[in-house]
């Protein structure tokens, strides 16, 4: 047993909280589901290894050599992973400063706040690394199996990148705290983390669209122009790729750099973390004045409910990063639309399903906030308004918000290809309606602040929402292509929705 209030003791405490939190999140807080969770994890691992097998083995069997083409693809993939890690680390570091949870207890105790925050920052680095490892690990395993164990060095590269991203995220967040103050930091760091997370993916896609006219972000890394223009084989730019391919000295240097930076950042800055948390807590309790209004506005009950939902959505600080990412991912389709304006059907085949899918996901998220994330459920339920009218108003608020985001794209489409725009509009309508209805069927009262973990409310709702938006997107693509298969696919989605409705939980009277 470790001594109380030491680094190891806090580490054990954090690990225990993380583990219980994770299990609770994955099992939706229901006991006895651990064996099912283990089974799902095994199935997921097998599936993702199969995917990696089909994508990687053709190259591995041919023998992978560290030429420029390979280094460009690996480095590009590394940058993609790194941008996601940096985004996740920035959001986690910001949350660590603003989330109150147990910080009041810890900061009011005689324990060293420096140790607590050092452990929390290490935990963020590990969690950041773990998430990417879950996705990248199967590719490393398959490469190690078919091309040699030297590929296992990829895990070391992931660890180095996780440490580097977290160290960088801490420095950037604290610099924002000092430069901009706690009030602006929360908002700006959300925007920055969303832009960083989506930025590289979108940039690579945009470059592919502009140079090759194709949508795949990998196209840009296979482009002969990029390979020809890339630096020579001795460039430090290729260190992560070389390390991932098993160069021991490069891997050691990369690990030294990543872990060293994280250690220096934690040692240098953790002493002041407590001050930032105190400053952030001041921001939480700071009074926010709204524009003074002198008059109540006459409105019907439904309009009052819609207006309330839109006001709360507008003022939700964490919603920004959650939805900004979804909206940012619409940028490449918009670029594709602009580039192929009116002259190429293949562009629309990619553009329309992306718009349809984004609509479903956006609507699902907003519906969760409006229905499950209702802050005053008893107040609304005790009002003399039928439940059906309340739900209708909330649905209208959600659909209205989706329309504001998606309508400009569909309108632009209408000028380029009216038939395609009609298909897109229909797809957006059914996808958004499906996402919203699923959240209504599976509504479960939750705190609005837990929006980023809304999937814990119901795994079935999460899967059904994803399935319906993906399949509606596929149906829309088939319709754009003029394929009769669309007529077969639409009933499948409706069947899935019917099945989801049939197994919805019974709402308490």
């Amino acid at each position, binding site marked *: 047993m470790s001594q109380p209030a030491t680094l190891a003791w806090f580490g054990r405490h954090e690990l225990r909280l993380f583990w219980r939190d994770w299990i609770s999140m994955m099992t939706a807080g229901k006991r006895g589901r651990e064996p099912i969770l283990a089974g799902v994890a095994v199935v997921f691992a097998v599936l993702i290894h199969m995917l990696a097998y089909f994508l990687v083995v053709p190259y591995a069997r041919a023998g992978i050599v560290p030429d420029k083409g390979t280094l460009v693809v690996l480095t590009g993939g590394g940058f993609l992973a790194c941008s996601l890690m940096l985004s996740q680390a920035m959001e986690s570091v910001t949350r660590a400063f603003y989330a109150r949870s147990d910080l009041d207890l810890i900061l009011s105790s005689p324990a060293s706040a420096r140790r607590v925050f050092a452990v929390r920052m290490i935990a963020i680095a590990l969690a950041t690394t773990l998430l990417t490892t879950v996705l990248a690990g199967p590719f490393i395993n398959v490469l190690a199996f078919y091309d040699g164990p030297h590929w296992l060095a990829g895990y070391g590269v992931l660890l180095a990148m996780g440490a580097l991203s977290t160290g960088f995220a801490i420095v950037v967040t604290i610099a924002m705290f000092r430069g901009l103050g706690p009030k602006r930091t929360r908002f700006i760091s959300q925007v920055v983390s969303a832009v960083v997370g989506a930025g590289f993916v979108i940039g690579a896609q945009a470059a592919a669209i502009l140079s090759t006219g194709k949508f795949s972000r990998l196209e840009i890394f296979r482009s002969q122009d990029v390979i020809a223009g890339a630096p020579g084989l001795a460039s430090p730019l290729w260190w992560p790729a070389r390390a991932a391919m098993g160069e021991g000295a490069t891997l050691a240097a990369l690990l030294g750099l990543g872990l060293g930076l994280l250690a220096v950042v934690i040692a240098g800055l953790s002493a002041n973390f407590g001050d930032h948390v105190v400053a952030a807590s001041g921001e*939480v309790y700071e009074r*926010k*004045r709204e524009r003074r209004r002198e008059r*109540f506005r006459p409105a019907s009950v439904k309009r009052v409910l819609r207006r309330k939902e839109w006001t*709360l959505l507008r003022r939700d600080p964490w919603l920004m990063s959650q939805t900004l990412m979804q909206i940012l991912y619409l940028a490449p389709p918009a670029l594709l639309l602009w580039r192929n304006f009116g002259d190429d059907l293949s562009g629309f085949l990619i553009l329309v399903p992306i718009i349809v899918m984004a609509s479903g996901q956006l609507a699902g998220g907003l519906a969760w906030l409006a229905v499950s994330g209702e802050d005053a459920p008893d*107040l*609304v339920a*005790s009002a003399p308004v039928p439940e059906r009218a309340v739900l209708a108003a909330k649905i209208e608020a959600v659909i209205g918000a989706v329309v504001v985001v998606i309508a400009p794209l569909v309108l632009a489409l209408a000028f380029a290809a009216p038939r395609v725009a009609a298909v897109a509009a229909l797809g957006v309508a059914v996808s958004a309606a499906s996402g919203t209805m699923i959240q209504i069927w599976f509504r479960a009262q939750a705190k609005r602040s837990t929006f980023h973990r809304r999937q814990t409310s119901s795994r079935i709702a999460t899967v059904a929402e994803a399935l319906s938006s993906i399949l509606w997107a596929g149906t829309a693509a088939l319709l754009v292509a003029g394929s009769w298969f669309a007529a077969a696919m639409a009933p499948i989605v409706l069947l899935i929705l019917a099945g989801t409705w049939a197994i919805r939980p019974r709402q308490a009277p």
Partner: protein
Amino acid sequence: MDSSAPALQLRGLVKHFDRPAVDGLDLTVRTGEFYALLGPNGAGKTTTLRIVAGLLRPDAGAVSVFGIDALADPIAAKRDIAWVSDEPMIYDKLTPFEFLEFVAGLWSIPAQVAEARARELIGWLGLEPHAHERCQSFSKGMRQKVALAGALVHEPRLLILDEPLTGLDAGSARQVKDVLAARVRGGASVILTTHILEVAERLAERIGVIDKGRLIAEGTLEELRARAGHAGSSLEDVFLELVARQNAAA
């Protein structure tokens, strides 16, 4: 609507969760009466009030609000009811002014009328300096006052309050008590649960004591004292005696 009907009438009310929470409860609150419902933790007070407010459906029994069958026509019954719980039901991101506008809209109060009432309530409860600040920075007492203002903005004839004074400082508690007393003088009826027995002792015209989902005693303070055999003693002594007797009998 029956003008001679009591403000609230419960008959044979039953609600089971994993055990009986309300077990055949009969209770009447007269029009214009301040009624305090007392009981130990888990006695069924909150469940009873949530049923009356239309937030829970009973397994059996009848609920009548000013003669309206609240189970058959909940919307009509809710028009005359306001519900305030110990956890203030307000929106952090709205200001008190916006919150009252929202609540008035839910009860379909004309904007001009609601606005005048809202201004009066905001002034009455000392919320004027904060009327256009988001509620997120408010103390528990201020939040409870905003929730109470929301409950009063549609001028309900029956106020249902579950521990409305929990966590309030002395000044805020006094303000809330004054507001409630004024509403009763104005003809409204109040049913309230509280663990602060001094509130029931000073404000309530009749007191009901509930235990294990059943009404074990009811009456004015004097009637309860007589029943407990504690003439001149405090409500606390009377309450503890009645509950102890009930437990001994069970």
